[in-house]
Every structure is written in C-alpha cells, then in structure tokens.
C-alpha cells in the first residue's frame, strides 16, 4: 500500500496548484506517482528522484573539470566572492521560498549588492506599470466564482500554466458560474493560433508587437467613438464586438503574459491594458491579473516590497534601497559591465537571459545555487545543488494573484544535502565573520 500525501502544492508555475497527491513508497522515501498535477508539475516531483542528481557542491577547475567540495567550502567561497566584490549582483530568488528570499536580503544588505529577481525578464514591465497607474485586480478564487468574460492576452496557459483554465479561469463551476465553461466567453489575443486560442470563442490574431494600438482601440470602442478601418491587423467591426462583449458581462477577467511584457512598448503595453480594465469598471466589474511564471516570483516581490519598498531591481550598494529599472536591472548592469561578481539562486539566467548578458556572467566570479545542472551552472565557477523547495522542504510561496500558500515537504532530500535557506545561513554567518561583525 503506497502512502498518499494529500494537499501537496506544486512548485513549478505561478498557478501554484494546491491539490496534488503524491504516492510514496512504504518507507516514505521514494516518490512513486504524482496525481492531479500537469505533465510539468509531475516531472518536477519525479525528477527530484533522478539517480544522476548532483548532491554535493562542485567547483570548476582550471581545465574546465569539476571538483567536489563541501558545503562549508562552498559557503566560504560564496561569502568571499560577495565581500570582495564592489558591486555584486544577487539574482534569481523565484524558485525558492520566502524564508530563503529573506535570508538572501540580509546577505544583500551586508555586502551592498544589487538584487534582482526573474521579474526582470518576465513581468518587470507589469510591476512598473502597476506603480505608474495602479491595478484593479482580484484573486483566482473570485475569478473562478464570478468571471463570465475571460481574456488571455499574449499568454498561452495551455502550455505555460496548464491547469490554470481547469482550476480557475474557464472550466470550474463557481458560485455565479454554475455552468463552467458554458458560463464564460473566452477571448484570446495572440499573433499565433495557439492551443489556448483554439479553445477560445474568439481568437484575435493581431500583428505581433501591436498590442498597444489594439488596446488603445478597445478603449476607443468602449467609449463608442470612431475607429480607423483596421487596427493592428484587426478590422474595426471585430474591435467593437470585443468591446461590447467585455462591457456586457457581469465580471471580466483579463490575464496577460510575456506576449505583452516582452514586446516593444513593454510597461506601456501594460499601462494601457490596466486602463482598459479601469474603463470597463464604468460598465461592469473587471479585474486584471498577470500570469506570473515561476511559482514564487510573486513572493520575491512581496518580500522585497515589505523589506525595501520595491519588488525588483534593488540597488543596496549605498546602504539603503534604490530602485531604477533600466539602471539597477540585471541585464543593464551586466551589459554595461557594472557588476563584478554574480550570485544566482533559484533561476537560470544562462538559459533565459539574452546571450550578450550570459557572456558577461561567464567572465565574472560566479556561483550558481540550483538543484539542476543548467546553462547557468555550466558558466559558473561554483555550483551548489540544494534540496527542492516544495518537494524536500516546505515554506511559503505566493500565487500569481498574490495569495500566499504554504508549500509542503513530501520526502527527505538526499542525505547531507542542504536547503537553500540552510546554505544561505552558512553564507550569512561567514559574511558577517569576514566583515568583522560576528
């Protein structure tokens, strides 16, 4: 009889599903099966059991080979790297729990680091827009119970957040949405005919990068004013129809993703999407939610928000927090050669930054703290594998709608492996020793 652990939280995407069940071997040490998760979530749990997994830190040698070191040696190297640097970049913080994020902040303060999280290549544009114009938002629970108009703009949950539609946005039968997907009109705006678009009532196949124009046209249409014949490749008749559909519902939910945050216009694309939402509130109830990627990138913004007042792009080098995306953002710092050491935890800039930035990381003293072998670990001088948060250690994470959920520990990590937070505590202690403040 397998032992079943219930109410397990999936530590992969911002949907942060909290209804997983994990079957364990009789001794409770091995994960046999993962129920309710999507394919990606299941892969995350099962891969933690991989036989070829790294369980000890390793340091790159002159000849490019790796040599195993102890966690103490790794912590010592990391602390020295951070203390010796004039302006270290401490990046990542999205695939870990809030406790580790907070310990990281203490280290960042001690060494005067620039700290940034994966929002910088994801929803950073959104965070700037929210600071500029505010945001009328809602939780996914409210949306499941109320939304009868659902828009996915520049996002493809069928692939990126596979259970989003079944758990929250399209299929659930909620209090006021008793007929599930039949209670809802689904609009997808995307330059590709994505698998999400194929499920929609309406697919608006706009020209890539013309989001601002189309959002602006929708504002015009909501007001009933005149439009040119075609905007962003979409005929005006369809734009008026979209405006009518959105206005006529009882509750409109707009979800948006990288299609808008990554295209030219960036934060201004989001400004105007938020303004569309605000306009709709003159006619009905409307809310807008960012489809956050990493399961706890939202938490990183929350922790830094309450500690420093800013959600990403922190510059602590002057002993107080400054915030100036474009200046204190990871890619700008790297491209302009403004940082002299790189520390990465819970993210993979090697795979997800433009290669121009990765080349800079490769030239600097660097440490990568990550359970996996990644392009970042490949270009780093020290790689520290740690336990998987949400699988081998619990801790708080924030869902994409800013709801905190406590993740669960399901199995023990391989013997002798540290968690992110345990390793960061070692580094913090060593940093304080080096700075003579212990």
């Amino acid at each position, binding site marked *: 009889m397998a032992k079943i652990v219930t109410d397990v939280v999936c530590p*992969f*995407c911002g949907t942060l599903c909290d209804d997983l069940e994990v079957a364990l071997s009789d001794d409770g040490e091995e994960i046999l099966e993962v129920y309710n998760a*999507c*394919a990606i979530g299941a*892969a*995350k749990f099962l*891969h933690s059991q*991989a036989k070829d997994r790294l369980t000890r830190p390793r340091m790159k040698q002159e000849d490019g080979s790796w040599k195993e070191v102890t966690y103490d040696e790794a912590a010592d190297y990391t602390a020295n790297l951070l203390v010796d640097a004039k302006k270290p970049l401490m990046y990542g913080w999205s695939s870990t729990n809030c406790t580790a994020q907070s310990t990281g902040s203490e280290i960042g303060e001690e060494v005067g680091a620039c700290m940034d999280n994966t929002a*910088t*290549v994801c929803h*950073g*544009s959104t965070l*700037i827009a929210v600071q500029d114009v505010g945001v009328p938002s809602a939780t996914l629970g409210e949306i499941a119970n109320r939304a009868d108009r659902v828009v996915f703009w520049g996002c*493809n949950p*069928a*692939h*990126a957040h*596979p259970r989003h539609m079944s758990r929250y946005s399209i299929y659930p039968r909620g209090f006021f949405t008793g007929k599930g997907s039949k209670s809802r009109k689904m609009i997808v705006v995307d*330059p*590709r*005919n*994505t698998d999400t678009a*194929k499920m929609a009532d309406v697919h608006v196949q706009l020209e*890539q*990068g013309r989001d601002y124009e189309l959002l602006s046209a929708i504002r015009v249409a909501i007001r009933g004013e005149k439009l040119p014949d075609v905007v962003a490749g979409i005929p005006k008749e369809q734009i008026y129809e979209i405006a009518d559909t959105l206005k006529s519902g009882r509750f409109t939910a707009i979800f948006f993703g*990288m*299609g808008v945050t*990554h*295209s*030219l216009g*960036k*934060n201004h694309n989001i400004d105007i999407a938020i303004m569309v939402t605000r306009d709709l509130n003159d006619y009905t109830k409307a809310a807008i939610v960012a489809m956050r990627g990493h399961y706890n990138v939202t938490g990183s913004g929350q922790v830094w928000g309450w500690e420093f007042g800013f959600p990403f*792009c922190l510059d602590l080098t002057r002993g107080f927090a400054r915030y100036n*995306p*474009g*200046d*204190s*953002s*990871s*890619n*700008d710092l790297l*491209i302009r050669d403004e940082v002299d050491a790189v520390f990465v935890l819970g993210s993979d800039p*090697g*795979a*997800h*930054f*433009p*290669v*121009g*930035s*990765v*080349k800079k*990381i*490769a030239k600097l003293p660097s440490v990568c703290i990550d359970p*996996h*072998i*990644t*392009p970042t670990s*490949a*270009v780093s001088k020290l790689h520290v594998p740690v336990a998987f948060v949400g699988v081998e250690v619990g801790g708080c994470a924030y869902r994409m709608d800013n709801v905190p959920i406590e993740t669960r520990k399901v199995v023990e990590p391989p013997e002798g492996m540290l968690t992110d937070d345990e390793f960061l505590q070692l580094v913090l202690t060593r940093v304080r020793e080096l700075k003579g403040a212990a």
Partner: protein
Amino acid sequence: MAAIQINLISGRTIQQGVSMENGKEKLAYRDACGILELDDVDFKRLGCFKNTNVRVSSEFGTVVVKAIGATQGPHPGLGWIPMGPWANALVDPNTYSTGMPTFKGTPVTVDAAEEEIVLDAIALITEECL
C-alpha cells in the same frame, strides 16, 4: 534555396517545461527547444523541407536549430523558438531603459544549414560564452 527574413518570437511549451525539469543537459531539452516553428508559406520561400536544420541569424547572434512545421499556426512571416538558450542566442539585450530586454519581435534571417548540428544547451552556452 534562399535565405528568408522573418520576425521572431519565443514562448513556453509543455515539452519545454517537462524537458527542462528533466534536465537541461539532456538531449530531450534540445529536441524540445532547439527548434524553429515556421509556417508552410515560409518553408516554401526558404525552399527546404520540414525537419531540416537551419541557421538563424540576427544582429545579436547566430544559432543552428531544426526547422519544423508550425504546431500553433498559421502564422506566416512569424518564426517561433521555444524559450531557452537557442532563442536567447538571437535576442536584443537592449532594454531601452525599462530593464526588460526586447525578447519578442527580433528581425532574423533564416537559411538552410543541413550539414550543421543543433548543439545541446550546455554545449551551446559553453561555445558561446567560454
């Protein structure tokens, strides 16, 4: 065979997510992400068959990937590479003072490169950076 100009975007796929969790050093990750999805119309212009390796070049870099038929098309004139080091070999790191590199909407040239191989993620990043 001719070189063609297209507009490049990137994004997630289930296969990208699954293979990434199973290990980015594995060939399955390369097979999931070292691809370029092209529309039928663009294959005709390019003058090569589906599942051929192609060289994709932008102002910011060059990478070899396997060109496959669009799975979420049609999208003529638009190329698509799943998020990962292959797509990011081509991306404009300029943030225009927003902090956000311009990941979507990179003008690229595509030409057939049947004799070239698609590197795995670790080999690709090592070749580019070390």
